[in-house]
Protein backbone atom coordinates (compact mmCIF):
# COMPACT_ATOMS: atom_id res chain seq x y z
CA UNK A 1 0.00 0.00 0.00
CA UNK A 2 1.56 3.32 -0.99
CA UNK A 3 2.27 5.72 1.83
CA UNK A 4 -0.70 8.04 2.45
CA UNK A 5 -0.55 10.60 5.24
CA UNK A 6 -3.80 12.30 4.36
CA UNK A 7 -6.45 12.67 7.03
CA UNK A 8 -10.05 13.46 6.12
CA UNK A 9 -11.02 16.08 8.66
CA UNK A 10 -9.45 18.76 10.80
CA UNK A 11 -11.19 17.25 13.81
CA UNK A 12 -9.49 13.90 13.23
CA UNK A 13 -6.15 15.62 12.59
CA UNK A 14 -6.03 17.17 16.08
CA UNK A 15 -8.07 14.60 18.00
CA UNK A 16 -5.15 13.16 19.99
CA UNK A 17 -3.69 16.42 21.31
CA UNK A 18 -3.75 15.99 25.09
CA UNK A 19 -4.03 18.56 27.89
CA UNK A 20 -0.62 20.01 28.67
CA UNK A 21 0.77 19.51 25.19
CA UNK A 22 3.34 21.87 23.68
CA UNK A 23 2.21 23.04 20.26
CA UNK A 24 4.11 24.97 17.63
CA UNK A 25 1.84 27.12 15.47
CA UNK A 26 3.30 28.19 12.14
CA UNK A 27 3.10 31.39 10.16
CA UNK A 28 4.53 34.85 10.66
CA UNK A 29 1.52 36.51 12.23
CA UNK A 30 -0.84 37.38 9.39
CA UNK A 31 -3.36 35.37 7.43
CA UNK A 32 -0.75 33.81 5.17
CA UNK A 33 0.82 30.67 6.55
CA UNK A 34 -1.49 30.47 9.58
CA UNK A 35 -3.18 27.06 10.13
CA UNK A 36 -6.61 28.51 10.91
CA UNK A 37 -8.65 25.43 10.38
CA UNK A 38 -6.42 23.34 12.62
CA UNK A 39 -6.66 26.05 15.29
CA UNK A 40 -10.43 26.16 15.01
CA UNK A 41 -10.49 22.38 15.33
CA UNK A 42 -8.27 22.61 18.40
CA UNK A 43 -10.68 25.08 19.98
CA UNK A 44 -13.50 22.64 19.35
CA UNK A 45 -11.40 19.76 20.65
CA UNK A 46 -10.76 21.64 23.87
CA UNK A 47 -7.29 20.51 25.07
CA UNK A 48 -6.16 22.76 27.93
CA UNK A 49 -3.00 23.91 29.72
CA UNK A 50 -1.27 24.16 26.36
CA UNK A 51 2.12 25.72 25.71
CA UNK A 52 1.91 27.62 22.43
CA UNK A 53 5.08 28.38 20.47
CA UNK A 54 4.77 30.89 17.65
CA UNK A 55 6.21 34.07 16.20
CA UNK A 56 3.28 36.01 17.67
CA UNK A 57 0.69 35.19 20.28
CA UNK A 58 -2.07 36.40 17.99
CA UNK A 59 -1.73 40.06 17.03
CA UNK A 60 -4.00 40.20 14.01
CA UNK A 61 -7.34 40.72 15.73
CA UNK A 62 -6.60 44.23 17.09
CA UNK A 63 -4.25 45.31 14.28
CA UNK A 64 -5.28 43.60 11.06
CA UNK A 65 -1.61 42.53 10.67
CA UNK A 66 -1.31 40.65 7.39
CA UNK A 67 -5.07 40.37 6.88
CA UNK A 68 -7.04 41.74 3.95
CA UNK A 69 -9.20 44.73 4.78
CA UNK A 70 -12.69 43.69 5.84
CA UNK A 71 -11.84 40.13 6.86
CA UNK A 72 -12.05 39.09 10.49
CA UNK A 73 -8.69 37.76 11.64
CA UNK A 74 -8.45 34.31 13.19
CA UNK A 75 -5.31 33.56 15.15
CA UNK A 76 -3.91 32.35 18.47
CA UNK A 77 -6.42 34.58 20.25
CA UNK A 78 -9.15 32.01 19.74
CA UNK A 79 -7.23 29.50 21.87
CA UNK A 80 -6.39 32.09 24.51
CA UNK A 81 -9.95 33.38 24.73
CA UNK A 82 -11.11 29.80 25.14
CA UNK A 83 -8.85 29.44 28.17
CA UNK A 84 -6.73 26.68 26.62
CA UNK A 85 -3.29 28.29 26.88
CA UNK A 86 -1.07 28.19 29.97
CA UNK A 87 2.12 29.51 28.40
CA UNK A 88 3.28 31.33 25.30
CA UNK A 89 6.75 31.33 23.75
CA UNK A 90 6.93 34.07 21.10
CA UNK A 91 9.02 36.92 19.71
CA UNK A 92 6.13 39.29 19.05
CA UNK A 93 3.48 38.44 21.64
CA UNK A 94 1.50 41.69 21.73
CA UNK A 95 0.25 44.26 19.27
CA UNK A 96 2.50 47.15 18.29
CA UNK A 97 0.29 49.55 20.16
CA UNK A 98 -0.31 49.62 23.90
CA UNK A 99 -3.80 50.94 23.26
CA UNK A 100 -4.81 47.94 21.17
CA UNK A 101 -4.38 44.94 23.41
CA UNK A 102 -4.71 41.45 22.01
CA UNK A 103 -6.30 38.59 23.90
CA UNK A 104 -2.87 37.46 25.02
CA UNK A 105 -1.96 40.78 26.63
CA UNK A 106 -5.25 40.91 28.48
CA UNK A 107 -4.76 37.39 29.81
CA UNK A 108 -1.12 38.15 30.65
CA UNK A 109 -2.11 41.26 32.57
CA UNK A 110 -4.67 39.22 34.48
CA UNK A 111 -1.83 36.86 35.41
CA UNK A 112 -3.48 33.94 33.68
CA UNK A 113 -0.75 33.11 31.22
CA UNK A 114 3.01 32.69 31.31
CA UNK A 115 5.30 34.29 28.70
CA UNK A 116 8.77 33.55 27.36
CA UNK A 117 9.98 36.18 24.89
CA UNK A 118 12.65 34.97 22.45
CA UNK A 119 14.26 37.05 19.69
CA UNK A 120 12.73 36.08 16.37
CA UNK A 121 15.95 34.76 14.85
CA UNK A 122 16.86 32.86 17.98
CA UNK A 123 13.37 31.36 18.11
CA UNK A 124 13.62 30.20 14.50
CA UNK A 125 17.13 28.86 15.07
CA UNK A 126 16.19 27.07 18.30
CA UNK A 127 13.36 25.36 16.46
CA UNK A 128 15.60 24.45 13.54
CA UNK A 129 18.16 23.09 16.02
CA UNK A 130 15.45 21.07 17.75
CA UNK A 131 14.59 19.47 14.43
CA UNK A 132 18.20 18.99 13.39
CA UNK A 133 19.49 17.22 16.49
CA UNK A 134 21.56 20.17 17.66
CA UNK A 135 21.04 20.24 21.43
CA UNK A 136 22.46 23.78 21.83
CA UNK A 137 24.22 26.58 19.99
CA UNK A 138 25.78 29.95 20.67
CA UNK A 139 24.45 33.16 19.18
CA UNK A 140 25.51 36.78 19.65
CA UNK A 141 21.86 37.86 19.51
CA UNK A 142 20.61 39.13 22.89
CA UNK A 143 24.05 39.01 24.54
CA UNK A 144 24.21 41.70 27.18
CA UNK A 145 20.44 42.23 27.24
CA UNK A 146 17.72 41.33 29.71
CA UNK A 147 16.64 38.47 27.47
CA UNK A 148 19.98 36.77 28.10
CA UNK A 149 19.85 37.19 31.87
CA UNK A 150 20.72 34.01 33.65
CA UNK A 151 21.91 32.38 30.46
CA UNK A 152 25.45 31.18 29.95
CA UNK A 153 27.53 33.22 27.61
CA UNK A 154 30.98 32.93 26.12
CA UNK A 155 33.22 34.97 23.87
CA UNK A 156 34.01 33.71 20.36
CA UNK A 157 36.22 35.84 18.14
CA UNK A 158 35.89 38.73 20.55
CA UNK A 159 32.11 38.65 20.53
CA UNK A 160 29.95 37.62 23.46
CA UNK A 161 27.50 34.90 22.52
CA UNK A 162 24.68 33.31 24.45
CA UNK A 163 24.06 29.56 24.80
CA UNK A 164 20.61 28.67 23.48
CA UNK A 165 18.94 25.27 23.56
CA UNK A 166 17.24 23.50 20.70
CA UNK A 167 13.46 23.57 21.03
CA UNK A 168 10.96 20.84 20.21
CA UNK A 169 7.24 20.42 20.71
CA UNK A 170 4.77 17.60 20.97
CA UNK A 171 2.82 18.87 17.96
CA UNK A 172 3.37 21.33 15.14
CA UNK A 173 0.33 22.79 13.39
CA UNK A 174 1.54 24.21 10.11
CA UNK A 175 0.05 25.66 6.95
CA UNK A 176 1.27 24.94 3.44
CA UNK A 177 -0.10 25.36 -0.04
CA UNK A 178 -0.04 21.80 -1.36
CA UNK A 179 0.88 18.37 -0.10
CA UNK A 180 1.26 15.02 -1.76
CA UNK A 181 0.37 11.78 -0.01
CA UNK A 182 3.95 11.17 1.11
CA UNK A 183 3.73 14.48 2.99
CA UNK A 184 5.95 16.57 0.72
CA UNK A 185 4.88 20.21 1.10
CA UNK A 186 5.15 23.38 -0.92
CA UNK A 187 4.35 26.85 0.37
CA UNK A 188 3.40 30.15 -1.26
CA UNK A 189 5.59 33.22 -0.98
CA UNK A 190 6.33 34.53 2.48
CA UNK A 191 4.20 31.85 4.10
CA UNK A 192 7.20 29.57 4.57
CA UNK A 193 8.16 31.61 7.67
CA UNK A 194 7.99 29.53 10.84
CA UNK A 195 6.13 26.70 9.12
CA UNK A 196 9.28 25.22 7.62
CA UNK A 197 11.42 25.00 10.76
CA UNK A 198 8.46 23.95 12.91
CA UNK A 199 7.66 21.09 10.54
CA UNK A 200 10.98 19.52 11.54
CA UNK A 201 10.80 19.95 15.30
CA UNK A 202 7.67 18.25 16.58
CA UNK A 203 6.88 14.67 17.47
CA UNK A 204 3.75 14.99 15.34
CA UNK A 205 3.61 17.49 12.48
CA UNK A 206 0.18 18.21 11.03
CA UNK A 207 -0.07 20.26 7.86
CA UNK A 208 -3.16 22.16 6.73
CA UNK A 209 -3.05 22.63 2.98
CA UNK A 210 -5.19 24.02 0.21
CA UNK A 211 -4.98 20.81 -1.72
CA UNK A 212 -3.63 17.27 -1.49
CA UNK A 213 -2.32 16.02 -4.82
CA UNK A 214 -1.20 12.57 -5.89
CA UNK A 215 2.36 11.55 -5.15
CA UNK A 216 4.41 12.56 -8.16
CA UNK A 217 2.35 15.67 -8.90
CA UNK A 218 4.74 17.96 -7.03
CA UNK A 219 8.00 18.78 -8.81
CA UNK A 220 10.76 17.30 -6.60
CA UNK A 221 12.80 20.48 -7.16
CA UNK A 222 9.97 22.55 -5.71
CA UNK A 223 9.44 20.63 -2.47
CA UNK A 224 10.09 22.89 0.51
CA UNK A 225 9.37 20.48 3.35
CA UNK A 226 10.24 16.86 2.49
CA UNK A 227 7.68 14.32 3.62
CA UNK A 228 10.08 12.87 6.17
CA UNK A 229 9.04 15.65 8.53
CA UNK A 230 5.29 15.40 8.09
CA UNK A 231 2.93 13.00 9.84
CA UNK A 232 -0.53 14.13 8.72
CA UNK A 233 -1.89 16.33 5.96
CA UNK A 234 -5.41 17.65 5.79
CA UNK A 235 -6.95 19.75 3.04
CA UNK A 236 -9.37 22.66 3.22
CA UNK A 237 -12.47 21.37 1.51
CA UNK A 238 -13.74 24.86 0.93
CA UNK A 239 -12.30 28.34 1.15
CA UNK A 240 -12.21 30.02 4.52
Amino acid at each position, binding site marked *: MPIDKSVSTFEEAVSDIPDGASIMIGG*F*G*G*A*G*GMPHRLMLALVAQGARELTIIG*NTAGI*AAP*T*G*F*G*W*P*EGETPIDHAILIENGQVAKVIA*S*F*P*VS*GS*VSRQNAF*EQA*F*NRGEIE*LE*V*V*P*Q*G*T*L*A*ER*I*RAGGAGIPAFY*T*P*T*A*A*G*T*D*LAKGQESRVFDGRESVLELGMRADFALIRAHKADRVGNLI*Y*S*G*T*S*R*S*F*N*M*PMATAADVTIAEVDEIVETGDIDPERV*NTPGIYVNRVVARATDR
Partner: protein
Amino acid sequence: MSMPQDPAPRLERDILAMRVAREFNDGDVVNLGIGIPTLCSDFVPPGVQLLYHSESGVLNCGPLAADGQGNVDLINAGGQFLEPVPGMSFFDSAEAFAMIRGGHIDVTVLGSLQVSATGDMANWFLPSRGVGNVGGAMDLAGGAKKVIAAMEHNDRTGASKIVQECSYPLTSQGCVSLIVTDIAVFNVDENGLELIEVAPGWAPENISAVTDAQFEVAHDIKEFELL
Protein backbone atom coordinates in the same frame (compact mmCIF):
# COMPACT_ATOMS: atom_id res chain seq x y z
CA MET B 1 9.71 69.50 32.10
CA SER B 2 10.77 72.88 30.83
CA MET B 3 12.22 72.69 27.36
CA PRO B 4 14.45 75.15 25.58
CA GLN B 5 12.89 76.88 22.61
CA ASP B 6 13.74 75.32 19.24
CA PRO B 7 15.85 77.79 17.21
CA ALA B 8 14.30 76.55 13.95
CA PRO B 9 11.77 73.95 12.82
CA ARG B 10 12.61 70.30 13.13
CA LEU B 11 12.84 68.42 9.87
CA GLU B 12 10.00 66.43 8.39
CA ARG B 13 10.21 62.64 8.53
CA ASP B 14 10.71 62.60 4.77
CA ILE B 15 13.81 64.78 5.03
CA LEU B 16 15.18 62.56 7.76
CA ALA B 17 14.56 59.52 5.56
CA MET B 18 16.18 61.31 2.61
CA ARG B 19 19.30 61.91 4.70
CA VAL B 20 19.46 58.26 5.75
CA ALA B 21 19.09 57.12 2.15
CA ARG B 22 22.36 58.88 1.29
CA GLU B 23 24.14 56.17 3.28
CA PHE B 24 23.12 53.43 0.84
CA ASN B 25 25.67 52.21 -1.66
CA ASP B 26 24.92 50.58 -4.98
CA GLY B 27 24.27 46.87 -4.50
CA ASP B 28 23.71 47.07 -0.74
CA VAL B 29 21.41 44.59 0.92
CA VAL B 30 19.13 46.69 3.10
CA ASN B 31 16.58 45.89 5.79
CA LEU B 32 14.31 48.73 6.82
CA GLY B 33 12.47 48.73 10.12
CA ILE B 34 8.89 49.85 10.63
CA GLY B 35 8.08 53.59 10.72
CA ILE B 36 10.51 56.28 9.57
CA PRO B 37 12.99 53.65 8.25
CA THR B 38 10.41 52.38 5.76
CA LEU B 39 10.27 55.85 4.21
CA CYS B 40 13.94 55.64 3.19
CA SER B 41 13.10 53.48 0.19
CA ASP B 42 11.38 56.49 -1.40
CA PHE B 43 14.62 58.48 -1.48
CA VAL B 44 17.27 56.12 -2.77
CA PRO B 45 19.77 58.18 -4.80
CA PRO B 46 19.81 57.72 -8.58
CA GLY B 47 22.20 55.02 -9.74
CA VAL B 48 21.92 53.14 -6.46
CA GLN B 49 20.25 49.72 -6.77
CA LEU B 50 19.42 47.97 -3.52
CA LEU B 51 18.37 44.46 -2.56
CA TYR B 52 15.67 44.75 0.08
CA HIS B 53 15.53 42.00 2.67
CA SER B 54 12.52 41.39 4.86
CA GLU B 55 12.53 39.01 7.81
CA SER B 56 9.11 37.86 6.66
CA GLY B 57 11.12 35.73 4.21
CA VAL B 58 11.65 37.62 0.99
CA LEU B 59 14.67 39.12 -0.70
CA ASN B 60 14.71 41.75 -3.39
CA CYS B 61 11.20 42.76 -2.46
CA GLY B 62 9.48 45.80 -3.82
CA PRO B 63 6.92 48.44 -3.06
CA LEU B 64 3.64 48.01 -1.21
CA ALA B 65 0.76 46.54 -3.14
CA ALA B 66 -2.01 48.88 -4.19
CA ASP B 67 -4.98 48.98 -1.82
CA GLY B 68 -7.10 45.89 -2.18
CA GLN B 69 -4.47 44.18 -4.40
CA GLY B 70 -2.73 42.44 -1.52
CA ASN B 71 -1.87 38.77 -1.33
CA VAL B 72 -1.71 37.23 2.14
CA ASP B 73 1.28 35.20 1.00
CA LEU B 74 3.41 38.23 0.15
CA ILE B 75 3.94 40.43 3.18
CA ASN B 76 6.74 42.45 4.73
CA ALA B 77 7.78 42.28 8.38
CA GLY B 78 5.13 44.86 9.22
CA GLY B 79 2.39 42.65 7.82
CA GLN B 80 1.85 44.93 4.82
CA PHE B 81 1.11 43.44 1.43
CA LEU B 82 3.85 43.73 -1.20
CA GLU B 83 3.82 43.98 -4.95
CA PRO B 84 5.71 41.13 -6.61
CA VAL B 85 8.86 42.20 -8.48
CA PRO B 86 11.25 40.33 -10.77
CA GLY B 87 14.19 38.67 -9.03
CA MET B 88 12.51 38.00 -5.69
CA SER B 89 13.27 34.90 -3.68
CA PHE B 90 11.45 33.37 -0.72
CA PHE B 91 12.81 31.59 2.34
CA ASP B 92 11.74 30.49 5.79
CA SER B 93 12.36 32.28 9.09
CA ALA B 94 15.44 30.27 10.02
CA GLU B 95 17.05 31.26 6.71
CA ALA B 96 15.82 34.87 6.95
CA PHE B 97 17.68 35.20 10.22
CA ALA B 98 20.68 33.18 9.09
CA MET B 99 21.07 36.00 6.59
CA ILE B 100 20.76 38.65 9.29
CA ARG B 101 22.91 36.99 11.95
CA GLY B 102 25.43 35.84 9.38
CA GLY B 103 26.32 39.39 8.37
CA HIS B 104 24.69 39.30 4.95
CA ILE B 105 22.72 42.53 5.53
CA ASP B 106 24.82 45.58 4.66
CA VAL B 107 22.63 48.20 6.27
CA THR B 108 19.65 48.19 8.56
CA VAL B 109 17.73 51.30 9.52
CA LEU B 110 15.85 51.03 12.79
CA GLY B 111 13.73 53.32 14.86
CA SER B 112 14.62 53.47 18.53
CA LEU B 113 13.37 54.54 21.92
CA GLN B 114 16.89 55.41 23.05
CA VAL B 115 20.41 55.30 21.68
CA SER B 116 23.36 55.69 24.03
CA ALA B 117 26.59 57.62 23.58
CA THR B 118 28.38 54.34 22.84
CA GLY B 119 25.82 53.10 20.35
CA ASP B 120 23.71 50.89 22.59
CA MET B 121 20.19 50.63 21.23
CA ALA B 122 17.01 50.27 23.30
CA ASN B 123 13.92 49.87 21.18
CA TRP B 124 11.95 46.84 22.22
CA PHE B 125 10.59 47.25 25.71
CA LEU B 126 8.71 50.05 27.40
CA PRO B 127 8.79 49.26 31.11
CA SER B 128 5.46 51.01 31.62
CA ARG B 129 3.74 48.41 29.42
CA GLY B 130 5.26 45.44 31.20
CA VAL B 131 5.40 43.31 28.07
CA GLY B 132 7.14 43.92 24.76
CA ASN B 133 7.80 42.66 21.28
CA VAL B 134 11.41 41.89 20.56
CA GLY B 135 10.61 40.57 17.08
CA GLY B 136 13.70 40.68 14.89
CA ALA B 137 15.14 43.82 16.50
CA MET B 138 17.93 42.16 18.46
CA ASP B 139 18.96 40.04 15.50
CA LEU B 140 19.02 43.02 13.13
CA ALA B 141 20.74 45.39 15.53
CA GLY B 142 23.38 42.79 16.32
CA GLY B 143 23.72 41.22 12.90
CA ALA B 144 23.71 43.90 10.20
CA LYS B 145 27.06 45.27 9.11
CA LYS B 146 25.87 48.83 9.63
CA VAL B 147 23.07 49.92 11.93
CA ILE B 148 21.53 53.36 11.46
CA ALA B 149 19.17 54.68 14.11
CA ALA B 150 16.55 56.92 12.52
CA MET B 151 14.24 58.65 14.96
CA GLU B 152 12.92 61.85 16.37
CA HIS B 153 15.50 63.55 18.54
CA ASN B 154 13.14 63.93 21.47
CA ASP B 155 10.10 61.93 22.48
CA ARG B 156 6.60 63.34 22.97
CA THR B 157 7.42 64.46 26.50
CA GLY B 158 10.49 66.28 25.20
CA ALA B 159 12.91 63.76 26.71
CA SER B 160 16.11 63.17 24.76
CA LYS B 161 16.20 59.85 22.93
CA ILE B 162 19.98 60.17 22.73
CA VAL B 163 21.27 59.39 26.18
CA GLN B 164 24.54 58.86 28.00
CA GLU B 165 23.32 55.42 29.03
CA CYS B 166 20.06 53.74 28.09
CA SER B 167 17.52 53.51 30.90
CA TYR B 168 15.25 51.20 28.89
CA PRO B 169 16.19 47.55 28.42
CA LEU B 170 18.78 47.13 25.68
CA THR B 171 18.23 45.68 22.25
CA SER B 172 21.92 45.41 21.46
CA GLN B 173 25.15 46.82 22.82
CA GLY B 174 27.31 49.21 20.83
CA CYS B 175 25.60 48.41 17.56
CA VAL B 176 24.67 51.85 16.20
CA SER B 177 27.22 53.61 14.02
CA LEU B 178 25.07 56.49 12.77
CA ILE B 179 22.17 58.36 14.33
CA VAL B 180 19.94 60.48 12.14
CA THR B 181 17.31 62.54 13.91
CA ASP B 182 15.05 65.40 12.87
CA ILE B 183 17.72 67.92 13.96
CA ALA B 184 21.11 66.21 13.91
CA VAL B 185 23.37 63.51 12.54
CA PHE B 186 25.92 61.78 14.78
CA ASN B 187 28.68 59.34 14.09
CA VAL B 188 28.92 56.80 16.89
CA ASP B 189 31.72 54.56 17.99
CA GLU B 190 32.99 53.09 21.23
CA ASN B 191 34.54 56.46 22.10
CA GLY B 192 31.25 58.30 21.88
CA LEU B 193 29.23 60.62 19.72
CA GLU B 194 30.42 63.05 17.09
CA LEU B 195 27.95 65.62 15.79
CA ILE B 196 28.56 65.86 12.04
CA GLU B 197 25.45 67.56 10.68
CA VAL B 198 22.71 69.82 11.99
CA ALA B 199 19.33 70.90 10.66
CA PRO B 200 19.17 74.40 9.14
CA GLY B 201 19.06 77.03 11.87
CA TRP B 202 20.43 74.68 14.56
CA ALA B 203 23.84 75.22 16.16
CA PRO B 204 25.72 72.61 18.22
CA GLU B 205 24.70 74.37 21.43
CA ASN B 206 21.04 74.12 20.44
CA ILE B 207 21.50 70.41 19.89
CA SER B 208 23.28 70.10 23.20
CA ALA B 209 20.39 71.77 24.98
CA VAL B 210 17.98 68.99 23.92
CA THR B 211 20.42 66.08 24.14
CA ASP B 212 21.08 64.10 27.33
CA ALA B 213 24.44 62.87 26.17
CA GLN B 214 27.84 64.39 25.68
CA PHE B 215 29.19 64.65 22.16
CA GLU B 216 32.12 66.00 20.23
CA VAL B 217 31.50 68.41 17.39
CA ALA B 218 33.14 67.56 14.08
CA HIS B 219 35.60 70.19 12.88
CA ASP B 220 33.87 70.13 9.48
CA ILE B 221 30.30 70.15 10.82
CA LYS B 222 27.74 70.86 8.10
CA GLU B 223 24.10 71.42 7.54
CA PHE B 224 22.12 68.25 6.72
CA GLU B 225 23.56 66.83 3.52
CA LEU B 226 20.80 65.63 1.27
CA LEU B 227 22.58 65.25 -2.03
